[in-house]
């Protein structure tokens, strides 16, 4: 199709605006020399950022989020990697059902997951904290990591693995010398995107952290107080920049060696 459609183009660009502008307000107001967010802008200042650096609770929460994120992303990506291999490589009975089962956490409102885990955790006599949050995040990230890895693995030439076995390598050797290096970009992408999902995740954390706040919990606590607002904006702006870079990097990784761009995150329902 060689025609251009300027109406649609303008609409699309406006839509872009609709999507981006609200997000961009955070960085804008984070430099605003005032405690409330309205126009006109008061003046430029970096004091909110400096304030952000000094908050001890913020650092604690940040550290907690990183810990949870790393564990959740590593575990979920590993689990998802094996599962993706099973789906891509083998024909077996119950394939569709297993696939649906693993995708389940996606298809249920998060609050229900949160509540369910809360109930069992408390009734088992455990204390709330970062551990149940990590479990919840792992559960939530796994289907996601699996989608990313499936997209990557489905194009994989399995005769390469057979060749490796034929040449004398056992299953583990084959994995380390052949499969893993070739899956690596997909694995890193899944790790990064799972990390971000965990990092930003609110509702599971809300129900399960108890007194150990993750970063979103910290922000939630701060959002209710207007005076404390500005440094939250600064924090928000930093997070946005940080996650944007990671996401762009992850997407770039996904497409290496894939040739023509495939439809990523093709959510199969």
């Amino acid at each position, binding site marked *: 199709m060689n025609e251009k459609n300027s109406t649609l183009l303008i609409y699309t660009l406006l839509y872009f605006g609709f*999507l981006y502008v609200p*997000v961009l307000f955070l960085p804008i107001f984070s430099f605003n020399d005032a405690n409330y967010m309205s126009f006109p802008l008061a003046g430029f200042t970096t004091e909110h950022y400096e304030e952000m650096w000094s908050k001890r609770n913020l650092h604690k929460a940040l550290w907690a989020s990183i810990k949870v994120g790393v564990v959740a992303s590593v575990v979920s990506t590993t689990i998802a990697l*094996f599962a993706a291999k*099973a789906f891509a490589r083998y024909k077996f009975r119950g394939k569709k059902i*297993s696939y649906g089962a693993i995708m389940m956490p996606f298809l249920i*409102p998060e609050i*229900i997951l949160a509540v369910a885990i809360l109930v069992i955790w408390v009734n088992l006599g455990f204390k709330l904290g970062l551990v149940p949050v990590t479990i919840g995040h792992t559960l939530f990230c*796994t289907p996601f990591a699996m989608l990313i890895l499936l997209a990557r693995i489905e194009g994989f030439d399995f005769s390469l693995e057979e060749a490796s076995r034929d040449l004398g390598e056992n299953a583990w050797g084959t994995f380390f010398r052949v499969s893993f290096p070739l899956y690596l970009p997909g694995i890193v992408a899944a790790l990064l995107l799972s990390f971000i999902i965990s990092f930003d995740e609110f509702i599971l954390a809300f129900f399960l952290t108890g007194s150990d706040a993750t970063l979103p919990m910290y922000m939630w606590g701060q*959002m209710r107080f207007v005076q404390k607002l500005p440094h939250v904006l600064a924090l928000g702006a930093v997070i946005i920049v940080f996650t944007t870079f990671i*996401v762009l990097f992850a997407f770039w990784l996904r497409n290496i060696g894939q040739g023509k761009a495939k439809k990523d995150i093709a959510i199969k329902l």
Partner: protein
Amino acid sequence: MIVFWRKIYAKYDNVKAYTLLSPALILIILAMAVPMALMLSFSMFTQVSMMEIDYTFTFQRYIDFFQKNLLVTLLIKSIKISFLVTLITLITAYPVCYYITFYVKKNKMLWLVLLTLPFWTSYLLRVFSWKIILGTKGVINSSLINAGILSEPLTFLMYSETAVVITLTHAWAAFALLPLYVSLEKIDFSLIEAGRDLGLSRFEVFWKITFPLSLPGVIGAILIIFIPTVGDYVTPALLGGIDGRMLSNMIQAYFGKINNIPMGAASATIMLTTVVLITIIVSNVTKRLTQRLT
């Protein structure tokens, strides 16, 4: 012995596949299936006092739910808001998808990535942004007042159902785009050209050819938006006020301040059942629609 195991392992693809799948399935069972089963059973108990729960099985909680005006209202409102959000998101995102699929030649991927990028930033922050924008002292109101267009701030923009709908439409846009794009991409463009060739107007071509063929993507988008929205907590909590409350806020209260676990569990189960029912209905309806249109 090893030889025996080797034989079994080599013989069945099933065994190989399930060995690989076992961690994932165990995770699902232990972290999701079992907890949800437990939650279901809790919905059959009674909260006698702050610390005490009566463990006799009863359906009373469900009866209680449907007798409480507030709860039923919240349930209906949650469904209504989700429905609205799904509809608006779909309608507003469709043209964008259409444009990218059919009018962008180079770097389609880049457009998609850029479009979905905001989705990757913290949901909490995005809701918060809208709070800034829609508030009485927020961006919209202060700009309009300063420009002299308004004398008083628009109050309906904040702490209202409207606020919730607007915010959620923004939040789920990315989700609508992807399945739609996938579906549109698969359409054989020569079908559209054939339609034009046979004399159909542009609109007719869209309505009779393109749209029906994109239905799988539409359904995907509907389910992806609708299901999580029904259970959304953050948006109604931050900017719903009283008017924009949803069922999840009540569920949270039951597990928090009110401390009535069985009621909370029952409410959650009802929410889940509603979601499942609607999913089944939507899938079946659209299946039949697709059959009729194709």
